[in-house]
């Protein structure tokens, strides 16, 4: 194994250790997982209220993908913030890997757990909500759910990069998550008077991915939506890396830690 690959693997391993320290398994099993299952039930019931049984199915497909956002949009904000809180950013600046690469490696546990949350909501909430018959078709599109977990992680990382330097990670992460919920048609299709929100949904994660998933389960063409979701993810990845690089350059120029850029 090359030195470069070994360094990346080490960054991923460190990321997992930090993730487990912040989110111990016992806490995840007793609080996070029940919350996610109840969240899936809540949004599916909202969908039923808005659009009847077909609305419930629409919302259930969205709730599976949205379950990941707890970690991929909100949780992932901890990745760059950890160095700010711990005062360790200078170690990244002197490291062999650029900060952006380290953040990407450390984001992997959030992506993985986000995808597992989606899987759990599918497998547990599905039968509870009366969608046992849809499990087959939805399991077949799990790679598309993995894609939405990935694109939302890129989005979360971009928000996190913007939050560094202050204490706005909670605000940005939650705002991002709510924007996705509102504009990406997670629970119900946007009402006609709110179609303008669809413009925002075009550049947010999950929107195109969910269109692809709904089309794939209905037997309609879905490759174009898949390509658009990939583009959205790449766009947010570019934003994340550019912001990290710009912040790093500004911090070096002013000879301060990134966490002190605004002070």
């Amino acid at each position, binding site marked *: 194994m090359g030195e470069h690959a070994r360094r990346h693997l080490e960054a991923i391993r460190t990321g997992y250790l930090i993730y487990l320290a912040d*989110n*111990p398994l016992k*806490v*995840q099993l*007793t*609080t*996070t997982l*029940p*919350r996610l299952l*109840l*969240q899936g*039930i*809540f949004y599916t*019931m*909202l969908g*039923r*209220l*808005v*659009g009847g049984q077909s609305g419930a199915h629409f919302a259930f497909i969205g709730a599976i993908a949205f379950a990941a956002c707890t970690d991929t949009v909100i949780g992932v904000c901890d990745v760059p913030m950890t160095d700010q809180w711990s005062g360790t950013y200078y170690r990244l600046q002197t490291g062999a890997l650029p900060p952006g690469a380290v953040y990407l490696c450390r984001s992997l546990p959030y992506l993985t757990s986000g995808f597992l949350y989606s899987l759990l909501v599918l497998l547990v909430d599905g039968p509870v909500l009366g969608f046992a018959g849809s499990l087959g078709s939805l399991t077949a599109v799990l790679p598309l759910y993995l894609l939405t977990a990935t694109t939302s992680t890129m989005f979360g990382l971009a928000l996190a990069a913007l939050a560094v330097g202050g204490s*706005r990670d*909670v*605000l940005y992460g*939650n*705002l991002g998550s*709510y924007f996705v*919920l*509102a504009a990406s048609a*997670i*629970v*119900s*299709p*946007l*009402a*006609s*008077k*709110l179609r303008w*929100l669809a413009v925002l949904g075009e550049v947010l994660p999950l929107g195109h991915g969910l269109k692809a998933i709904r089309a794939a389960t209905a037997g309609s063409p879905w490759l174009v939506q898949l390509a658009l979701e990939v583009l959205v993810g790449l766009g947010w990845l570019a934003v994340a890396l550019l912001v990290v690089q710009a912040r790093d350059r500004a911090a070096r120029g002013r000879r301060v830690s990134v966490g002190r850029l605004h002070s």
Partner: protein
Amino acid sequence: MSSGAPNGAARTGFATAVARVGARWVRILAASARMQILVIRSHPAVPITAVVQPVVFYVVMAGQHGGADSPAQRASRLIAILLTSLWGATLWAVGGILRREIAEGTLARNLTSLTDPRLVVIGKCLGSSLLVLTTLVGTSLVLALVTGARVPLDAVPWMLLGAVLVALSGTALGFALCSLFVLTRHAVHVTAALTYPVFILGGLLIPTSLIPGQLSWLSRLISLYWADQFLGRVAGGGAVPLTALSMLVLLITLYYVTGHVLFRRVVDRARRKGTIDLG
């Protein structure tokens, strides 16, 4: 006749003493509430739960009835959204009060001061509740203007009474919850976990008719359910639902008593273990 004057003087003296103590309590409550508002007004939980969340819930629910509902139905839905968001806001803004006291090292000073520490904590809960409720009412008014939701003018006094009771409900709930949240180091996760049970079982956005029969009785233990019944009925121009009003007052009292017992136990436990400043 001769004993009348001393009795009257004693009664006046007693009334003066009670008034003095009452005024002191009100001053402490007001100072604690003001301090708490200053502390949390810039906390992200306030705009997220009291502005963003209700707007997003409105957007999600906008397609209900194909958008062809009456102004009263829209008002009723807005009240349900407001109360749903209030639960989240109560959890985040009020539930963390005692935890913050420990983190900032002020709990020990509070417990050893001349003032009853519960008065300070309840004042802080009241401050948080007032801040989030005022913000939520502002958000709801804007949404009502945008969506055309209307309530009859003669319902306004009852709505104000309902708002006062909802603020007291949030205060009492927060008082009970903040004692619970200091029992764990992972209070943030526990706080998040408590959000959805009430979202689902509270009978607010999700009608109790959609909840399985074995679980629907749980709604009756949640003050926000009765607040929704009360506010929804008066906003629709119906008769004042006295049962809902009585149940709301009863549950607020029950939450306060629970908070009182929990607070005493948590403080006793912390004193025994020597962890007052450690959580």
